[in-house]
């Protein structure tokens, strides 16, 4: 049996697209969509890449060191049309990330929103005021 029927002619893609546009590339199967967590750390790296951007932050742990968490966002194409740029976040910025955690417990998940130290809220709909910049 074929592992996965690419796009059942429209159905799945559109279902996913309706829910969360740029995620049509893959399902939410790896994320625990029933839960949302929040964590604060310092931006270690931003991968402004397709098919998704990845925001990596270092979070202090209780051993005096830090752990790196990875958060998947939309695509740079999608975000660039909604006010984000590759320098919206800078290395070293403190950010509080709300995310859907990985089902397997690994450190990271799907980026839902972020709040910078200055109180700026970043969503996947747009940077700044949270409204799509069209």
């Amino acid at each position, binding site marked *: 049996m074929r*592992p996965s029927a690419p*796009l059942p*002619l*429209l159905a799945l893609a559109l279902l996913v697209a309706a829910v969360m546009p740029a995620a049509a*590339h893959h399902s939410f199967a790896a994320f625990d969509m029933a839960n949302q967590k929040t964590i604060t750390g310092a931006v270690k790296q931003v991968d402004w*890449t397709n098919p998704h951007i990845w925001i*990596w932050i270092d979070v202090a742990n209780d051993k005096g060191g830090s752990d790196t968490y990875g958060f998947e966002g939309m695509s740079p*194409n*999608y975000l660039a049309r909604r006010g984000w740029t590759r320098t919206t976040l800078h290395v070293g910025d403190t950010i509080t990330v709300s995310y859907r955690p990985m089902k397997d417990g690994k450190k*990271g998940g799907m980026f839902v929103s972020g709040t910078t130290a200055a109180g700026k809220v970043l969503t996947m709909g747009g940077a700044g005021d949270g409204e799509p910049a069209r």
Partner: protein
Amino acid sequence: MDTQKLANHIGCVVLLAAALGWPAFAQQPIYKAPAAADWSALSKLPDFSGVWERGGGGGRGAGARGRSGGPSFTPRYEAMRAAAASAPQPEDNATANCLPPGMPGIMGQPYPMEFLLTPGKVTIVIEAYTQVRHIYTDGRSLPGEPDPKFFGTSIGRWEGDTLVAETVGFNDHVQHARGVPHGEKMKIVERFRLTDPDTMSIETTITDPGVLTMPYTTTASLRRHRDWTISEYVCEENNRNSVDQSGKAAIDLTLPGTNKK
């Protein structure tokens, strides 16, 4: 192998090719060099130029309605659909591995596309997965035995202000629903037209004798953004998603700077 043997060998292959009717020497449609008149004729066509964003929802099925508004299958294919629906569901589909969705799914992606009208051809540049569709409007016929492809083989014609594209020849990645393959004679007809200066309507009708009980039609609309350009989308650039043969989805969280699998 000496020269004589080689010559005999080649002769045999050529004879075999002729006997089997191999298409190696079949007449291919010729793309005629456009004349100035062909270029100026384009100005009479509707203005499809620029970058269009899929909008207006996913398009509702009309006409043949099976369960939940989807296409209506003949009993044999409905049984396949039901069997697949009750079997364990794969967690993801092959797009997670960066294969593009086939037709018509590629036309419903949350990324824009650009229409290029040139003499004898409409080209659709699709940002998602960096794909291109080629619709020949030079009067050629659809191939009788097209090679199976994600996007099939397309021809088009103008009916007034409507571009009517016909597409045949799909590969096995194109399915009507999970577990429901398409038939040999599946055809997609798309009707593209402007409904206002910056809105395009696409009516998509799928026919598949022996598989669908009647044509299945959906409609969608696109919105033009004059200030947008098509951007690069190389899915393999940093794809951390995957789905394996068993249908299990995964995300690679290997730290940046280390070896990603």
